[in-house]
């Protein structure tokens, strides 16, 4: 079959990213031709500022070297500007500016022509030394001018203008900034933050003319600019004038070939949610030139989101819609920290929380509307920028954390790995990812050199945050610091894995709504891209099926991780560990004797007491597992599973002179009621008999503390990666109530939690208020949750003894052949 032909006009970040996404999912569908007006391969335009400031070189910011195009069989025409498109015959015409022409036929055309700087229509704009700040050529012209001349004027005190001014000042020029508005970066900052920014840039030697309008540019006898004259008559000496008064979508070609472009706002080629132009569905447009729902974006994150959606349509999957983006901004001027996102200006119906410390140069404003964070403007301390941005994009209800919101994520108890919460203050040699031993320096290096923009990319290339994930926040901060505010944040709706665009929630909803009972059925109904998923999505779907349709959906052992397939914990040398269940942490002489005999008989090398008040036998050969279970004769401890693990107890009122309640019996009752309960992640409980809390109930998924008048219940604690103190949930009178309320909470978590989400993260996502409403306020609802859990667990087999019923494939314990 002959390949379809795809022509990309515009060899920049948005267009090439779209190709990368396309090649990932449909590598052989198209014969691809790319036209670029610049003579360079695709480079990282965001990093032009560091190049200007002398912190990076042009070579370092190339994203796709020429080899990349060759490797993927892409025909690349550099230095060729597309001048026409015959839409009837589907032919693109490009010119090299010297009379040479190149033609290319297409089946699909992708316009990613980017934007053009806005050139003020003032007398003198064509003088030598008057430039815009847009590409490598402009940057080189600025570097060249800085080496030869003393004075520069930048028109425009926005993001780009200030980065240009800073870069030129660093290269030794005396720089004035002319800005029309009363304060700097008015589209990203409020007046206070703008004022602080101005002060700190003035300290670096920049001069500012605010509320100033340019009258004209004056030239010398050689035709080079020599000064800029303001409306009030002031003349500023200028050997170089940089116009940074905004950008406009580059719609020149689109207009010429009759594509509908917006008149409103900043203009742009009007596209649909599938990034197709409204005029011609064969023609797609992404990037700064495209106007989507009236917005032409100028930051990279939205452009990448567009690219991803566009690629799925080019690949003929026909899935995915682009529905717009939230954007955040960070100034890439070394030593100045500012961040803004959303509606930072506030207004009707909003409330503002403000912290201002002009002496320390710190200013923070958070804008809240309907209990949700809708905007943030930070100056001087932007550590929590990525966290605020996440809250904003997720539209999370912040009512419960409102009083601590201003003090940042570290104050919510989310302290990050090893107590680090401030990526910026870490040294390059400091370890960020403790699981994979990745330090800050190597992450930053990979982000810069490999041109990484997303958390996923950083994970793939460096392994940082790819294991336990506790350093995810730190890695996101590093992305933000290194790639600027333009990095592509994980979207609020996150696909489960590369096999699908379906999110965990969508998968759960579909399984419930359409009564899907098999993994294949789910994959078919939700158009999975892979025939049988992957090691990430299949266990999740298997869990969703059995938790949503107990007794109906069949458990599939081949879709479970090895530990849950062999009912033991795999160790680094391929042997297994066995942890039998000891109800409430109590054991007996005969159990201990059987364990001791098994240790001798099967030569088990290590016997260890666990933190969950049980005994761990380590180094058991897989062939011996079934016999060890049988000889010990105790129930499975499920220490290997995403399921109820232990119920830790103190000795309680039976023995302890301080005990107020019989915590041991309560623990045993809870454990007997809840064991064999599979859940999104592991579940640990504890019961203490008095407020001294010897069973450490404050760091368990469900913690129970006996007090003189009854029992206090705590939920969502965690002792693991990040120590998280449980929330007080309710106070109850009787052991029966403890069972019902704990069970109902856990059933809610089982029904609503996403796979591999601990209770702490589940509660953080849905909010404690939601959980209280379902379990505490709704009496009928609670009773039916508890009943559903009991129904699910009724008659569930012990996998160590009822192999067939528990779908344990016992063939795995013997080799298929011995040679």
């Amino acid at each position: 079959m002959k390949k379809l032909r795809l022509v990309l006009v515009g060899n920049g970040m948005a267009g090439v990213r779209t190709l990368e996404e396309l090649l990932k999912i449909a590598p052989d569908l198209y014969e691809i031709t790319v036209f670029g007006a610049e003579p360079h391969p695709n480079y990282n335009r965001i990093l032009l500022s560091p190049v200007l400031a002398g912190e990076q070189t042009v070579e370092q910011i190339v994203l796709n070297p020429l080899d990349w195009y060759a490797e993927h069989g892409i025909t690349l025409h550099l230095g060729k500007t597309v001048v026409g498109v015959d839409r009837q015959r589907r032919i693109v015409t490009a010119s090299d500016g010297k009379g040479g022409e190149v033609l290319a036929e297409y089946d699909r055309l992708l316009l990613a022509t980017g934007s053009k700087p806005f050139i003020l229509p003032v007398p003198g704009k064509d003088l030598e030394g008057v430039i815009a700040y847009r590409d490598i050529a402009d940057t080189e012209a600025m570097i060249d001018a800085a080496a030869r001349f003393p004075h520069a004027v930048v028109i425009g005190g926005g993001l780009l203008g200030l980065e240009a001014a800073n870069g030129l000042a660093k290269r030794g020029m005396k720089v004035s900034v002319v800005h029309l508005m009363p304060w700097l970066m008015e589209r990203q900052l409020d007046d206070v933050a703008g004022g602080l920014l101005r002060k700190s840039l003035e300290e670096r030697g920049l001069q500012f003319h605010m509320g100033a309008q340019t009258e004209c540019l004056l030239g010398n006898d050689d035709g080079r600019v020599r000064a800029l004259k303001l409306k009030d008559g002031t003349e500023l000496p200028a050997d170089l004038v940089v116009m940074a008064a905004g950008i406009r979508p580059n719609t020149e070609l689109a207009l010429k070939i009759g594509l509908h472009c917006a008149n409103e706002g900043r203009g742009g080629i009007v596209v649909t949610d599938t990034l197709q132009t409204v005029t011609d569905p064969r023609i797609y447009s992404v990037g700064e030139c495209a106007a989507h729902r009236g917005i032409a974006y100028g930051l990279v994150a939205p452009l990448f989101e567009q690219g991803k959606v566009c690629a799925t349509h080019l690949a003929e999957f026909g899935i995915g819609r682009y529905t717009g983006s939230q954007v955040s901004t960070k100034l890439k001027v070394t030593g100045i920290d500012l961040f803004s996102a959303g509606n930072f200006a506030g207004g009707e119906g909003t409330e503002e929380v403000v912290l201002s410390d002009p002496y320390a140069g710190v200013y923070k404003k958070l804008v809240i509307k309907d209990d949700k964070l809708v905007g943030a403007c930070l100056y001087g301390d932007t550590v929590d920028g990525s966290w605020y941005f996440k809250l904003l994009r997720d539209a999370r209800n912040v009512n419960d954390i409102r009083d601590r919101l201003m003090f940042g994520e570290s104050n919510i108890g989310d302290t990050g790995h090893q107590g680090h919460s401030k990526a910026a203050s870490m040294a390059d040699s400091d370890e960020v990812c403790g699981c994979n031993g990745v330090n800050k320096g190597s992450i930053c290096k990979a982000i810069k050199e490999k041109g990484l923009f997303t958390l996923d990319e950083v994970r793939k290339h460096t392994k940082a945050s790819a294991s336990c994930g506790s350093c995810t926040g730190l890695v996101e901060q590093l992305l933000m610091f290194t790639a600027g505010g333009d990095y592509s944040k994980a979207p609020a709706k996150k696909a489960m894995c590369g096999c699908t665009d379906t999110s965990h929630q969508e998968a759960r909803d579909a399984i419930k709504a359409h009564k899907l009972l098999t993994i294949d059925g789910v994959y078919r109904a939700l158009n999975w891209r892979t025939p049988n998923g992957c090691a990430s999505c299949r266990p999740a779907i298997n869990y969703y099926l059995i938790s949503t349709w107990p007794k109906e959906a069949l458990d599939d052992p081949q879709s479970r991780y090895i530990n849950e397939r062999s009912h033991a914990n795999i160790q680094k040398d391929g042997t297994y560990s066995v942890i039998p269940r000891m109800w409430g942490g109590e054991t007996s002489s005969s159990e201990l004797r059987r364990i001791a005999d098994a240790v001798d008989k099967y030569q088990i090398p290590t016997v260890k007491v666990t933190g969950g008040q049980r005994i761990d036998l380590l180094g058991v050969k897989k062939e011996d597992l079934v016999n060890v279970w049988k000889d010990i004769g105790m129930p499975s401890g499920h220490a290997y599973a995403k399921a109820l693990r232990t119920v830790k107890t103190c000795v309680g009122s039976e023995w302890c002179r301080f005990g107020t309640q019989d915590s041991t019996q309560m623990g045993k009752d809870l454990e007997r009621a809840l064991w064999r309960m599979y859940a999104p992640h592991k579940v640990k409980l504890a019961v203490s008999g008095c407020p001294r809390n010897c069973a450490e109930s404050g760091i368990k998924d469900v913690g129970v503390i006996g007090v003189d008048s009854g029992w206090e219940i705590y939920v969502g604690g965690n002792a693991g990666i990040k120590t998280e103190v449980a929330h007080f949930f309710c106070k109850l009178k009787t052991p029966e109530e403890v069972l019902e309320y704990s069970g109902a909470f856990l059933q809610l978590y089982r029904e609503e939690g996403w796979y591999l989400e601990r209770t702490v993260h589940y509660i953080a996502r849905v909010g404690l208020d939601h959980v209280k409403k379902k379990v505490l306020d709704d009496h009928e609802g609670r009773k039916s949750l508890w009943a559903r859990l009991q129904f699910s667990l009724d008659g569930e087999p012990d996998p160590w003894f009822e192999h067939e019923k528990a779908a344990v494939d016992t063939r795995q314990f013997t080799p298929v052949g011995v040679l």
Partner: protein
Amino acid sequence: MVNWTRICRVEDIPRLGSRRVARSGATDVAVFRAADDHVFALLDKCPHKGGPLSQGIVFGHSVACPLHNWTIELASGEARAPDVGCAARFAVKLEGGEVFLDAAELAAK
């Protein structure tokens, strides 16, 4: 002339699963069965940290190592990028529902 040794019937290997062939004095060989009943054989040792690939989750024509989740392509033994490494591959023959391995290769690798 390949000396094919019969190992088992294809049904003896769970679909989307694996079984081990034990060898005295040498690492086991893992035989895999994909959903489409293609059968593959690799040394039961991940090129990363030596994890037993036979215990991993099989999907498509790949397996995820149970220790650190490297994805190994069953046909080539190669780790999926950006990881780099290769598990030794063994020739397999599937005939009349029976799985065979090359005796010489089993003795040598």
